[in-house]
């Protein structure tokens, strides 16, 4: 089982308390009525399926209830960091496996 650090609870907890919630930093169009069908298509359906460091959302659903973001290496399945929703995406070059 993975251990995941919740940045709101500030505790490292078993994976079963969390749910995965897809790729992070997918921005809804700021002016929805100006977005084209292609924009909506990309927003709703297109994801990167990264091999390596993937920025993704998780939710501490059986705990504080909060969504947050994580960087996880999809090859090793190790978390590099987790951070609060709304915080900027960290530079992957600064992240190391096992770091919090």
């Amino acid at each position, binding site marked *: 089982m993975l251990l995941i650090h919740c940045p*709101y609870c500030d505790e490292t*907890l078993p994976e079963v308390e969390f749910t995965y919630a897809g790729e992070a930093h997918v921005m809804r169009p700021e002016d929805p009525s100006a977005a084209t069908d292609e924009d909506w298509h990309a927003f709703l359906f297109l994801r990167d399926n990264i091999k390596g460091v993937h920025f993704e959302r998780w939710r501490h*659903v059986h705990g504080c209830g909060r969504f947050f973001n994580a960087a996880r290496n999809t090859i090793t399945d190790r978390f590099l960091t987790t951070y609060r929703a709304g915080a900027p995406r960290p530079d992957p070059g600064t992240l190391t496996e096992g770091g919090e």
Partner: protein
Amino acid sequence: MTAHADIPPPGTLIRTAAARIGITAAPGRLSLRARDGLGALGTALGIDLPGRIGGRAGRDAIEAMCLGPDEWVLLSPPEEVAALLAAGAAVYAAHPHSLVDISGRETTIAIDGPRAAELLTLGLARDPAGIAPGDGRRTYFDGQTVILWRDGETRFRMDVWHSFAPHLLGLLDTGCRELAAEAP
């Protein structure tokens, strides 16, 4: 309070050398969500709302636990629920929040005895040692979201939604007997 066909009335259900399992008298329960004006809201409710997740505070027979960054649960004597709701409503215009009576939702299971913490490992994914006496957490127990109150080293309460209570009571009953049946 509503009686539920599959949930026994308050009282002790099983007591072994390991632990005792019981159901508490049904308290009043309130769910509070608020982002700002916590000081004023706390003053209105008469509770210094804890800001740390898992932290608890209270007055008289009223208890509050912080469940998330903007979420608390309050337990009170059932007859005080209306007064708490009114206290919240009185400051609502200045400090918008959500304060909802959820008294009909959950059963509280009391778990205490020398091996109570060990008994909880039957369904708790996290280490009970991570929850200090006097604290609590919303967490996960054998497939359900529960609110766990650690009242002492060997005393716990677990709030579970009614529909999960028969299953969890059965599991805890089995665990109580198993631990007590172990060779010394």
